Each structure stands twice: as C-alpha cells, then as structure tokens.
C-alpha cells in the first residue's frame, strides 16, 4: 500500500474526486499542502488576489456545472476572508468545499499567530464542517465532504486542517474510499406517491394555474421535466431570480421573473391564480411580498428536497418532499393517465394573461438624448451574444435589469448571488465559469459600485489568461440604494454617490487588458462587436455609461400583495 503524508493525501483525494482546479491563496499553515501541490500536476491551483474571490470562483464554477468548486486558504485572515463567499454559496444552496488551514493542534486555543476559530465562525453558514484530528482521516473526510456538499439540498462544507496533520515526514497508508455512508444523513430519494397523485389532481382541476419555478430546478437538473410539464399542460411559467433559464425565457408560456422586481404579468397571474405549483423555490420574502396577502385564492403545491422549506413562510396545501426531477417524472406519468385540464378555462386564463402582458410587458421609455438606458444596454448585450452567454451578475440595479431583459433559454447560464446579495460576486464567479468553459462567452454584468469590490482579480485574469467580459453599467451611483432613497427618503442620496471613479479603460490596460468606453447609444453595437470579435481572447472592460435617473420597475409596494406594484415613477397598480 502507498504511503502518503497528510498534505499529499489531501491533494490526491481531491484528484480522486475529479477536481481540476483549486482556487486559493497559500499561507503558513498550509505550506505542506502547497508543497504537495507543487509535486504533482493533476490538480491545478489558481492563485487569486483575495480569498473572497477564490470562494466566488469556486461558486461560479459550481453554479455553471453542478459540481462543487474547491477553495483552499490558510488559517486566520485567509479563512475569514472566505466567509462572505461561503455565506453566498450557503444562501443559494451551492455545493462548495472550503479547505482552511489551522495552526498546529497543540497551539489551538492559545491565540496563536493567525489562529482563528474557523469551525465556529463558519458554523451558521455551512451545510457541515469537519476538523481533522488525525491525518489518517483525510481521505474519508474529503469523500464525506463531497457527498454532503452535493447530495440533498446542496451547500458548502468546510474542512479545517491543523498544520501538524499535513507533515511531510509523517506518512500513512492511503486508500480512497469508494463510497461513504453517514448514518445520520439520508437525503430524500423520492417523493411520496400519494401526495404526488393528490397534487396532480389539484393541479389539473385548476382553472387559473401558474407554475412557479425556482433555483431548485436548476440545482436538481430538472429543467427538461419542467419544460415537459409546462408544455403538456399549456400552463404559464414564472421563475424566481434563482430559477431563470430552467424554462426558456423567450418561450410564449414564460411570464418572466416574479416577485419584488418581477414582471407585471407574473405577479398579476400569481395573485389571481387558483392553483400554484411551486417547484424548487422557497416562498422567499422577495417573492411573496406580505405573506398575509399572498395569492388569496390559490391552492398551493410545493415540491422541495428540504423539508424545512415547506410551510416555513407560507402554509402550503400539498407539500412534496423529494428531488424535483423524480417528483416531476412521476407527475408526468400520472398526468398522462388522467383527463386534460379544462381547455376553455385555460383559454380564458391565457387571454387574461395576454392582456396583462400587453399592459406592461417590460416596457420602459427610451431617451432621445442618446444616453443609454440600462435596459437598452442589456438588450444590446443579449443581441450581441444571441442570448447564449453565461451572465454572471453582481448585485444591484444592473442585476435586476439583467434578470429582466436578458432572456435566458438555458439553465446554469444565469449566475448571481440571489439570496445573500453579495456585491463583488460577479467578476470572480465569471472567472470560475470561464476557466472551465474557455470556448463560451462569459460576461460579468456589473456596476461601478460592485466591480470595485473585487477588481483586484484583473491581475489573476492576466496571470491565467481568463478572458471574461466585464459589462459595467456605470451610472455613477449605487443605483439600487439611490432608487430606494428616491422612493422612500425624498431623494436624499446619503452615501450613494461615488465620486473619484477611476478611468476604467486605463485601469484595464494597466492590468494588460482591453478597455472600451460606451458613452452613447450609437457606440454600443460596435463596442460589442469588438468585445466578442476583435478582442475575443482578451479580457475586455466595457464601461457603459447609462442614465443615472433610471429605476427598476415593476417594483412591488412594500407590505402589499403580489399585485401591488409601481410600474413606473408615476404609475401604480
């Protein structure tokens, strides 16, 4: 049997899990592990400029592929710098493995140099965490970590490794376990058949049905089943921010996003529905508005793999706990046996929905001054990329505009921090995607606020040749903050104006990349052409100057029902 040190076992175990890239930053407590990296070539290490970015890179990769990304950081500040990244992944149920170094076991608790209680600090934001007490545990712990991160409702797992667990001169017999069993952890494999049948009966009896689909459909790889369900029944589909793309955004049956900045037709359809099937979503407060006024006439069916999501914020009539793909497959079989839903009721429901669609349908007023509206910029990006790009968004107005106006036709292509709302997420996430899909168009849609939260990664992009496109909607303001200040604080723009912005083109160039300024409507198309044509293999920072006055609409009125919305600065439902 082979003898390996703890550090070597760790790297080898990652290789056995099929890991190609590890995103990280070395430091004292992990130097033995980094030495083990150096002596092999199967697992490559990507050196970021800030550990938070390592976590977002791993996260972006996981969102695009469903495979957990791996992060490696040293103890103390290295570990704490990943916290925002771990929380981002946790909130959106993204699989991730974070390996953090720790001071020598005998120093733990002594406030040693670069010691911090990573197990304690990360506890509320991980699915699980392990602290290595014996180097011989390493292979099994890695195996368990990947199993936990990817099964059931996915999430991040931390492995904390004291330096003395990786000593190069202490070698142990190494075998990698083929599978692991955890007696206290059995994620659901299938939904309750009786409940599924009951749900189908209620769903087919609906006269005003809506499919409300979420990120669980993307994570659970059930996009095909969702499409089949919607097509078989001719029911309208609305998707959460996390779920976009699971159902094609350009399809007639797609009503777009729902919730706070959801489309008028989505929110109206939800409010007036008599049956709603929620698939892999969680009745989040950004979706429901006031839960007491939520969809008063609707019978609710809820499919989720996590029992704690059921009836957490809104009581549901038919809960089904199970993986979305298998539950939907079972539903489709039952639907095939039963009579089709009432066609004339469905026809008048669609007629009503089309009227709503006509009333607003994503309308916005364009400027005649030549100044781009952010919506127009996103539409231009959609055209330039044929709607085929991976769009990795930061957080704010640009995120909502991208969600509303970039019509995603495929799952896993819309990558954003939906639950935690982490500014600074988009750029490193895009890097993680691009490294693993070098032939695809990968765009970070951002604002001049968000991009500065991880802008140092332009250096990493230079080192590893990661030609992502940064599409920065620059309105000179923290736009979403400004919007709330306009709407709720009589326009008092407290700390939402960013003076002293850099010259973006020069900044990009100083890192060895390309910068393009878009200062008017007429420059967008040619900038896009250069970005994806002439500079196809370069990182391009496109600074798009947009109208600072623009707000994101529709916007639900706080404490109202789904249908209570502002549709523009002057128009309310």
């Amino acid at each position, binding site marked *: 049997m082979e003898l390996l040190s703890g550090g070597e076992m760790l790297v080898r175990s990652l290789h056995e899990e099929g890991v190609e890239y590890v995103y990280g930053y070395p430091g004292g407590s992990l130097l033995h592990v980094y030495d083990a990296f150096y002596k092999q070539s199967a697992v490559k290490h990507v050196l970021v400029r800030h550990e938070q970015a390592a976590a977002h890179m791993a996260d972006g990769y996981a969102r695009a592929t469903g495979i957990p990304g791996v992060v490696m950081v040293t103890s103390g500040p290295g570990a704490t710098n990943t916290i925002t990244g771990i929380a981002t992944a946790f909130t959106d149920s993204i699989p991730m493995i974070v390996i953090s170094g720790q001071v020598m076991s005998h120093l733990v608790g002594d406030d040693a140099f670069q010691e911090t209680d990573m*197990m*304690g600090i990360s*506890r*509320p934001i991980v*699915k*699980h*965490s392990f*602290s290595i007490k014996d180097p011989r545990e390493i292979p099994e712990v890695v195996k368990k970590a990947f199993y*936990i991160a990817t099964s059931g409702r996915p999430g991040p797992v931390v492995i904390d490794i004291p330096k003395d667990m990786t000593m190069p001169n202490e070698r142990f017999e190494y075998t990698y376990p083929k599978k692991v069993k*955890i*007696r*206290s*952890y059995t994620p659901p494999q299938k939904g309750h058949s009786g409940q599924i049948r009951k749900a189908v009966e209620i769903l087919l009896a609906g006269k005003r049905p809506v499919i409300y689909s979420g990120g669980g459909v993307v994570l659970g790889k059930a996009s095909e089943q969702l499409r089949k369900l919607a097509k078989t029944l001719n029911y309208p589909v609305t998707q959460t921010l996390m779920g976009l793309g699971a159902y094609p955004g350009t399809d007639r049956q797609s009503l777009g996003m729902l919730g706070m900045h959801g489309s008028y037709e989505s929110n109206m359809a939800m409010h007036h529905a008599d049956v709603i099937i929620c698939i892999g979503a969680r009745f989040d407060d950004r979706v429901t508005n006031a839960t007491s006024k939520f969809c008063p006439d609707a019978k609710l069916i809820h499919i989720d793999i*996590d*029992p*704690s999501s*059921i*009836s*957490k914020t809104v009581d549901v009539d038919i809960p089904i706990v199970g993986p979305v793909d298998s539950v939907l497959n079972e539903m489709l079989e039952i639907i095939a046996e039963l009579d089709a839903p009432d066609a004339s009721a469905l026809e008048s429901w669609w007629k009503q929905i089309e009227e709503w669609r006509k009333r607003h349908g994503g309308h916005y007023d364009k400027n005649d001054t030549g100044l781009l509206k952010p919506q127009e910029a996103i539409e231009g990006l959609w055209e330039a990329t044929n709607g085929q790009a991976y769009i990795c968004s930061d957080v704010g107005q640009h995120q909502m505009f991208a969600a509303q106006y970039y019509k995603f036709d495929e799952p896993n292509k819309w990558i954003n921090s939906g639950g935690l709302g982490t500014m600074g997420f988009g750029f490193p996430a895009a890097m993680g995607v691009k490294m693993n899909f070098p032939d695809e168009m990968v765009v970070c849609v951002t604002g001049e606020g968000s991009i500065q939260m991880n802008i140092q990664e332009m250096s990493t992009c230079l080192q590893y040749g990661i030609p992502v496109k940064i599409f920065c909607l620059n309105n000179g303001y923290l736009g979403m903050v400004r919007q709330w200040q306009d709407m709720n604080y009589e326009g008092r723009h407290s700390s939402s104006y960013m003076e002293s912005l850099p010259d973006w083109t020069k900044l990009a160039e100083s890192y060895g990349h390309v910068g393009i300024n878009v200062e008017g409507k007429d420059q967008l198309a040619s900038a896009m052409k250069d970005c994806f044509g002439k500079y196809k293999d370069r990182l391009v920072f496109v600074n798009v100057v947009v109208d600072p006055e623009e707000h994101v609409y529709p916007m639900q009125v706080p404490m109202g029902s789904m249908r209570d919305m502002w549709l523009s600065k002057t128009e309310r439902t």
Partner: protein
Amino acid sequence: MRHIISILLENEPGALARVVGLFAQRSYNIETLTVAPTEDPTLSRMTITTTGPDRVIEQITKQLNKLIEVVKLVDLTEGAHVERELMLIKVKAAGAQRAEIKRTADIFRGQIVDVTANVYTIQLTGATDKLEAFIESIGPNCILETVRTGVSGIARGEKTLSL
C-alpha cells in the same frame, strides 16, 4: 406551548455547538437543555425544552433534523411520556423552621442530602411543575441557592428513540 424535544446526537466535538447555535441564530427559545452520552458511547442523548407556536416548533424539529450530527429526534410532548428534573436546593433551616422544612421535603418526597446547624440541602426529583411547587411552598425567604439539571424525558411504553 411547551415542547420537549429529545435528540439522539453523534457524540462528537462540535455537535452540541451546532444545536445550540441553531437555536441562537434562528431566534428559537431554549428553556432547558441536558446532554450526556448514552449506553452507546458514540451517541449522546439531548433533551431540550422550548416554547413557541406550532409553526416555530415544526421549524425547530426540521432544522434540527438537517444537522448532519442529529441522528434522530422526537417531540416527546406529542405522546405519553415521562419527564424528570433533579433539583438541589439549599435552604435556611434554623430553629422551629427545621421541622417544617423537613415535613415539606417529605411531602414532596425530597431527600435531605446535607445538613449543617442552619442549612438543609434538599434533593428533589420530578416534573418541572413539581419542583416549582416545592420552591413556592418553601417560600423565597429561606431559599439560599438552587441548581436544576433541566428536563430529561423519555416516551412511555414500548416506543424508543434509538438507532
């Protein structure tokens, strides 16, 4: 309403912190908590008493079940069960009071486990309300110190919480 949640937990470092952390981070209430290893040294048994509306209790049990180290749990208050708490209470017992306190302890089936010229230390076991009734009978003026273990509970009959 008050609930007694009984948990079978992996006897591993950090498991207790995860349970307690869950209650803190989600603003759930803990009234009492007891934990000790079982006959199987790999497992601990924990009893938590908590109060809250049904929706919150349901979330508590679901969120606890999500913790990897939680092997099984049961809400004992959903069925017939036995609950016990142990209290050690130190009371002033001088002069004429001594006999009266001894009598009260006897009524509650308490045992005097330590005696000085002026103080009795009484051990009392029972459900929470019995301990509280005793405290009330003795009256606040003569109580010097109390220490309680918190509730341990077990289902009546043949039902067990085991692997």
